[in-house]
């Protein structure tokens, strides 16, 4: 059995009498790339901040590596990297100096840090601009530097909050590739919050869907798809036609008494389908 790395139990956060996060139960196992999905304002960032001990839960608890995030935030933050949404750096410091500040805050000795920073800048493809002030960086470069900042402290868990917002498709590809490499080569567990479904589907091994502060589904995409559409499946009849499915065939089936709907179906449930199913009401 794999070890549970992040576990939330009845986690609740109340802001101004509204429950932003409402008794969430969440489990992330070692080595997973966990996609944390939900529309804006669903409570993703609040949950993440509670996991890092940057915000106190109103009730319930969240543990990372067995440490309570509220009571022992330093132990949690030591082994966890966080890439905030719209990550920022000190603009008049160079990429290298920005990372150096992070390694120092983590108590990594300078000699070891220098090597590490060089290596990390190489990985994120910023070696050539290591000595350039971050103020001159593009949004995509800053985001890659953000990934560098995640890697440089050698975490065991990386929490990435909307790591691909506002960058071009090529940049998105690079970031996603980095995340996968990070997970495979360094065995870093990843919590990826996003509302961009295509990306999540591409790289995540498991997902959790949050809506209005509640987890509405959790598991692998296949599992959720199955359970979600189970009820409907009992009343469902699949028909395969010999040649091409034409509208005349569909029409004639529809004429049979008791048939509610005739639909052309794609072979697998995409994450899009699942997502839209949950948020149809909104």
């Amino acid at each position: 059995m794999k070890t549970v790395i992040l576990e939330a139990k009845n986690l609740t956060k109340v802001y101004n009498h509204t429950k932003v996060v409402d008794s969430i139960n969440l489990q992330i196992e070692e080595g997973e790339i966990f996609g944390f999905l939900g529309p804006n304002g669903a409570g993703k960032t609040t949950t993440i901040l509670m996991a890092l001990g940057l915000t106190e839960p109103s009730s319930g608890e969240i543990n990372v590596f067995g440490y309570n995030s509220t009571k022992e935030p330093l132990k949690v933050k030591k082994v966890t990297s966080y890439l905030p949404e719209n990550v920022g750096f000190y603009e008049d410091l160079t990429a290298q100096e920005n990372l150096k500040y992070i390694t120092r805050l983590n108590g990594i000795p300078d000699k070891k840090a220098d090597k590490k920073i060089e290596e990390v800048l190489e990985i994120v493809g910023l070696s050539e601009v290591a000595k350039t002030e971050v103020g001159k960086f593009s949004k995509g470069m800053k985001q890659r530097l953000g990934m560098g900042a995640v890697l440089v402290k050698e975490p065991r868990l990386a929490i990435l909050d909307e790591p691909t917002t506002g960058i071009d498709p090529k940049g998105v590809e690079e970031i996603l590739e980095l995340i996968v490499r990070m997970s495979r080569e360094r065995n870093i567990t990843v919590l990826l919050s996003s509302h961009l479904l295509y990306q999540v589907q591409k790289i995540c091994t498991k997902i959790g869907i949050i809506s209005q502060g509640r987890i509405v589904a959790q598991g692998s995409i296949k599992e959720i798809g199955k359970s979600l559409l189970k009820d409907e499946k009992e009343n469902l009849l699949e028909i395969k036609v010999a040649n091409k499915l034409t509208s005349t065939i569909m029409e004639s089936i529809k004429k049979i008494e008791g048939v509610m709907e005739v639909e052309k179906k794609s072979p697998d449930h995409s994450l899009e389908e699942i997502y839209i199913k949950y948020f149809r009401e909104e």
Partner: protein
Amino acid sequence: MSGLKVVFWKELADYLGSRKFLILFIIILISAISIVFILSQNIGEYSSEISKDYVFLNFFTISLGALPSFIFFVSFFGPLIGIIFGFDAINSERSKGTMSTVLSQPIYRDTLINGKFLAGFATISIMLISIILIILGLELGVLGIVPNLEEISRIIVFFIASVIYIGFWMSLGILFSIIFRQTTTSALVSVMMWIFFAFFVLMISSVIADQVAPLNQNSTLEMVAKNENIKSMIMHISPVVLFQEITIALLNPSARAFGISALIKGSNLLPTPLPLTQSLMVIWPQFVGLIALMLICFAVSYVIFMRQEIRAT
């Protein structure tokens, strides 16, 4: 290195390397040098104003026609220096998105604010020490006067008072940078506070005093004293007034009281200079008041910062 040290050194490097520090430093330096030079050129003309026992201190206190004295510079521009260092301390980190990155590192939240305060005080101290040393050096070089021990200790106390005074304004700036999300708002509010304490307090105090204890031609001495007391009570909430009195007593050893009591007491006292310990006794309440104001600013900033939510939205 512990987190506090790391934050401190980083912030200090930021301050000392910043353009705003350079500009302020050059402005103050030029004014200090010009005061010393003009004074040393015309020292003969001012011989009547110069106290013979404390020649050295005169360079800080004497104003020459259009050119104001050095202590005026500090009491007037000190607040601006403090505000410039403080007003964007926290809200700029917030708006640039660096705060969540820093606080997600294994440090406590107060490390950030403590580091900023300490680095700010260090910057102010470095600035003041270097300027005071430059003035002393010029005096030594140009005039060949050697300060005595009494003068040196007075200058050291003056330095401490100035750091606390400018530090108060920096703390006020940091407080507003925590309360307001926009750097422009915090800058404006800080400057408004400075204008209020530097100018309006004086007007308001006399208006209130005249309301409570109105004076006319038949007023008795008691009435005048009461009016003056109310005025000085209100005036003393202003750090500018507190600092001005402190510097007067420190750099002008014959000063022994302020306001109406100075007029009454002074008339039948010989203007002999006081030793430093006695001067300190005179300004002790002002000193404590200034320290208290600064500590209050820090404490309020600290509490608000610790309770604030991290997320920018």
